[in-house]
């Protein structure tokens, strides 16, 4: 299992948006928490209206006028139902707003995020839920929540943690405990729910603890991303 790989892949999927505008109009607020990097470049004077170029890694995907992107960014952002029938350039624009959020976050922000994900699992009440705690202490703090999820719903709850001594008695049905691999479990705080009977409810969060106690990672409702997290856990 390598959750680091999953975080790396999420990072590599970052879109690069180059805003050619000359006057440095800002977009960061709207795109900063998305999996998007924004850079600004000038335009030759008096030539034409501002536009943006969207790249996936090195590969150019689309250019559209800034005014069009602004319209897309005006809530509510609706992804068309016939997404797969869209031309690749319009798909590129919509995937800018895929629900993958990538950021440096503190514990409190992540806790709030995980609460939302837990709530999805609770409401769905079926399916597989995997959650990793970096220590037994951290798990004990959240134990009532997960015990309730395991006992009062049909959720199949798996908890990963690092045992602190051989006397830790973790085995306690209906929760299934895992203690391997210790290195990943100790480094990452993670949560993954497959959505059970309703795949649209699937969600995942993977965050690596970095120096100074802040976390770096992502959360997502994007199916392929959630699948990737499960692949690493199963």
């Amino acid at each position: 299992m390598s959750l680091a790989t999953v975080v790396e892949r999420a990072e590599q999927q970052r879109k690069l948006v180059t805003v050619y505008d000359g006057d440095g109009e800002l977009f960061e607020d709207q795109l900063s928490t998305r999996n998007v990097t924004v850079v600004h470049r000038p335009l030759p004077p008096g030539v034409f209206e501002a536009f943006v170029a969207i790249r996936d890694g090195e590969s150019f995907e689309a250019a559209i006028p800034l005014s069009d992107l602004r319209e897309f960014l005006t809530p509510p952002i609706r992804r068309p139902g016939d997404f797969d029938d869209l031309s690749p350039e319009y798909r590129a624009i919509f995937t800018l707003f895929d629900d993958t959020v990538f950021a440096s976050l503190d514990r409190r922000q992540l806790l709030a995020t995980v609460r939302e994900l837990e709530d999805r699992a609770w409401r769905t009440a079926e399916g597989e839920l995997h959650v990793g705690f970096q220590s037994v202490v951290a798990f004990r703090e959240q134990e009532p929540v997960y015990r309730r999820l395991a006992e009062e719903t049909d959720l199949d709850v798996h908890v990963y943690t690092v045992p602190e001594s051989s006397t830790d008695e973790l085995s306690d049905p209906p929760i299934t405990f895992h203690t391997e691999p210790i290195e990943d479990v100790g480094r990452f705080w993670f949560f993954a729910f497959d959505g059970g009977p309703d795949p649209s409810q699937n969600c995942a969060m993977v965050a690596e603890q970095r120096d100074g106690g802040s976390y770096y990672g992502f959360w997502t409702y994007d199916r392929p991303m959630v699948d990737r997290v499960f692949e690493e856990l199963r």
Partner: protein
Amino acid sequence: MGRDNQSLDLDDDELWTFTDWESVPSSDRLYRALTDQDRRRALYCLLEYEEQSIDEMTDILAGWELFQNGVVGNEAWEQTRTQLVHVHLPMLEDCGLIEYDADSGDAQIKTLPDPVRDLIRFTQKYDRSLMAHDLR
């Protein structure tokens, strides 16, 4: 090498004299360089920025197209880039207007006499005026 400080004053009867005649493209080469819209645009980009990477230049040429097309995708972008790399930039270099490093993908404008610079700017204004009229 300083630029010749002469502007495109056509009422003035005096002929232009250039300090560095070596760097002045022949009439045929100069006008041939300007016979293609993308080439005129590439030249104008370099005139404004002096130096530019091929990818950024392609972005800007794609951005120009947005006026007419609304969106430019990967295929059109790659096509524009290929044309720049294999046709336009080598030709502009051959005309003595730019220097192009195929390895790094960077192009830069050569020191050009003011009347030539003015002519490049003229082509942009002219193209833009016609385009604005067409779009009206």
